[in-house]
């Protein structure tokens, strides 16, 4: 047997989990719903400066049969970002397995804060199944608590879409994100 992978997003104030990963969905009211669709709550293109998506808190969860999981990497593997729209992402720090209610303003945890107009903390891209050099590195937490599992989750990866003024309206289309890891 091998490890069974599940990808989870945590949301709301409680850190409840879902499997939806729509960076365009927002919840500017309370940050308690990860499923708000883009038609109902699009990210407004600002007259100046930047607008931000709801932070997306995602992590890998491993179950079934394995001995160790290590060297977990995360990167963007498909999709096009037009203009200067960016996807910022970082492994959450400190306390990488502790969830905090997502926000729709510039994010320290996703690395957008202060870096909106730079390439710093842009989520690394590679269409390859091999992780690019800039891929995020996560640790395996065997003692993490909370939904979905009590153990065997990766660190949280926090992502956020950054939309600058002057951006063209529309959707950014589908994007693919990948986890890679070493397993025994």
């Amino acid at each position, binding site marked *: 047997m091998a*490890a069974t992978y599940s990808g989870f997003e945590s949301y709301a104030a409680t850190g409840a989990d879902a499997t939806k990963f729509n960076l365009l969905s927002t919840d500017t009211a309370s940050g308690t719903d990860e499923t708000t669709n883009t038609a109902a709550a699009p990210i407004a293109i600002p007259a100046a400066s930047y607008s931000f998506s709801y932070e997306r808190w995602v992590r890998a969860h491993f179950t079934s049969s394995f001995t160790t999981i290590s060297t977990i990497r995360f990167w963007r593997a498909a999709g096009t970002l037009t203009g200067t729209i960016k996807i910022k992402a970082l492994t959450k720090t400190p306390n990488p397995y502790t969830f905090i209610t997502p926000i729709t303003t510039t994010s320290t945890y996703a690395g957008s804060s202060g870096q909106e107009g730079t390439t710093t903390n842009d989520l690394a891209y590679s269409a390859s199944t091999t*992780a690019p050099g800039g891929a995020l590195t996560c640790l395996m937490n065997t003692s993490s608590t909370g939904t979905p599992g009590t153990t065997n989750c990766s660190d949280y990866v926090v992502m956020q879409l950054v939309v600058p003024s002057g951006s063209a309206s529309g959707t950014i289309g589908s994007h693919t994100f990948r*986890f890679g*890891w070493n397993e*025994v």
Partner: protein
Amino acid sequence: MPNVNTITTTSANLPDGSVVTYRDSDPSHIREGNFRAILDSSPLTFQVTDVGGNVFGVDLTTGGLFVGESLYIGPPPVTPLRLIYYKHMVTELDGGSRPLCLYFVVGWQTTVDGKNEKLGLKVHPAESRWEITSDI
């Protein structure tokens, strides 16, 4: 897409003459217990069998790597060799695809003049090929 269960059997010869073997289909507590026993016992040799029945292994006394009956000798060890073994997996975030085993590695690491050196077999199941490389 290659089977996620790329390895069917793992075994090692230990210094006390015993042989530890486990199947990938064994329950996790058996596999983990046996794997820990191997790691804690400074194995003399370590080998895995893939789903095609091919054997890939390392002789941790000589630095030799073997594929079936063929033996590839590495540089002589200066310090004790440490086993390196793992499968490298990848999948999409939403789990829409089964994890893909890009490659698995059987090899060793040692220290030469204060620097870590590695050598091993990197086996790419989807491409039906393997290589000897220090990039493990």
